């Protein structure tokens, strides 16, 4: 390696270290940029199809962007009115739900205290469930101003994410070429390997997750709608979103739907129907959506997945939960390619070939 390139590589590594340090200090700022790259990554195969046919990448990106905006507008026009109506309904009903819930807890506390008083006397009062839904709603209302601010923050993300994705799609190849040009020649093969392996693992995982989440959302929407649940679109979308986090969709989506169904005054048979629906969605997900849509793109041990999810939540809240598994998969690929670097043996022993 000549001296110029050596110093270039040293400065690049130093720059990378500074960038990593900076990112860890203000990582929240980078979230929309990160999501923009993920959006670009998702759209990339579609752009690649046109690029392979000899079309100009920059112009194809503009056309695809216009197409995606039109599709998104159509989807919003179709789903948003129902979504907003359901959200308004649930918000209007929220105080009543909270009151019913508090009454239920009060009844439970009375029964519990009555039963325990015979054994524990006045100490039985200590075993009351200290939960009041109305207090939680009051606390939520107090935080509304800051919530509005975070909505404004989110609106800014809606502009930043497609903006970043646009530049990543039009200039991404050039950026990757620059990274390879700066990498010392002897490590180019390893870097290419790492990128190809990560791409093979992540590409299938992210695209599969989106499709799988969509399937789960649609089945849940249809099922809840058929059961006469008020808020089928909202809860279907929520379940699809929750599906991004392993084991979360049936617990949060199903649990909330059952609770809201109970407060909506649904009969026991319909509540059982909701329970069975979420069980069915789980089974469909495990035996149809995951094997056919997701495949075995991420080969991680279940214990490792649980650990990754918990660690992700600790580090990055909800986004940490969503990205825990893919990040763990990337770390596994990097470790297997670096620490687990092995010497290869021939697939067929030459002595066994007769010619």
């Amino acid at each position, binding site marked *: *390696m*000549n001296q110029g*390139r050596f110093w270039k590589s040293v400065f690049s590594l130093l720059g990378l270290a500074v960038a990593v340090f900076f990112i860890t200090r203000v990582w929240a700022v980078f979230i929309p940029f990160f999501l923009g790259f993920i959006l670009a990554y998702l759209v990339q195969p579609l752009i*690649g199809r046109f*690029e*392979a*046919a*000899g*079309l*100009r*990448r920059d*112009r*194809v990106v503009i056309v695809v962007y216009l197409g995606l905006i039109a599709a998104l507008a159509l989807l919003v026009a179709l789903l948003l009115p129902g979504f907003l109506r359901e959200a308004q309904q649930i918000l209007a009903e929220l105080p009543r739900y909270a009151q019913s819930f508090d009454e239920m807890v009060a009844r439970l506390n009375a029964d519990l205290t009555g039963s325990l008083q015979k054994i524990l006397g006045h100490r039985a009062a200590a075993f009351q469930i200290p939960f009041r839904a109305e207090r939680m709603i009051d606390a939520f209302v107090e935080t509304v101003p800051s919530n509005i601010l975070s909505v404004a923050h989110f609106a800014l993300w809606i502009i930043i994410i497609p903006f970043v994705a646009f530049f990543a799609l039009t200039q991404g190849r050039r950026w*990757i*070429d620059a990274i*390879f*040009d700066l990498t010392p*020649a*002897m490590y*180019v*093969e*390893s870097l*290419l*390997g790492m990128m*190809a*392996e990560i*791409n*093979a693992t992540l590409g299938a995982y992210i695209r599969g997750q989106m499709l799988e989440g969509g399937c789960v959302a649609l089945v849940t929407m249809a099922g809840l709608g058929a059961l006469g649940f008020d808020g089928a679109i909202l809860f279907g979308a929520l379940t699809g979103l929750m599906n991004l986090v392993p084991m979360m969709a049936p617990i949060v989506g199903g649990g909330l739907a059952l609770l809201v169904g109970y407060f909506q005054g649904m009969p026991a048979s319909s509540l059982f129907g909701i329970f069975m629906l979420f069980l069915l969605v789980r089974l469909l997900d495990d035996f149809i959506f995951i094997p056919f849509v997701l495949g075995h793109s991420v080969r991680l041990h279940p214990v490792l997945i649980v650990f990754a999810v918990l660690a992700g939540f600790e580090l990055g809240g909800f986004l940490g939960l969503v990205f825990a598994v893919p990040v763990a998969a990337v770390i596994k690929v990097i470790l297997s390619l670096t620490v687990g*670097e*092995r*010497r*290869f043996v*021939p*697939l*067929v022993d030459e002595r066994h070939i007769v*010619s």
Partner: protein
Amino acid sequence: MPRWLRRIFKNEQHSETLAFFRNISIFHGLSSRQLGRVMLAMQRRAYQAGEKLFEEGHAGKAVFIIKSGKVELSRLTAEGSRKLGILGPGQMFGEMALLEQMNRTATATVIEDGEIYLLYTASLEALVRHHPRIGVRLLRNMAIMLSALLRRTNKELDRLTRTPV
């Protein structure tokens, strides 16, 4: 697509690169669109004379195709480094890595500045999985190339055994 629309969207550079890859034996018989897909799976890098692409004994994971410049292949022997040959534009090396991941049997050093394309095993496997027609054609071409190599080696061996000492 109408001609005026094609003129707006056509990538001129793509046609040039396509023409270059069409002459590489591993890509014979691929349609323009199929070749376009293979090109997307490859990575280009500019090299300078003196840079080592890989060393003998290291794990091989990619195939190299020279676009421009020259590369020297050498092997270490008891007497020192032995030159195996010099490769130039349009030539490919390291293809054994695509078939089975083996340790490199030679060292490759750039002796003239140029550009080289790399195709990694996992990218080839992804191509085979998602586009079986491309995969079958590439693997068939590789089998033909290896067969030709074996024929040449047999001839060479035959010539050596017939030569009186």
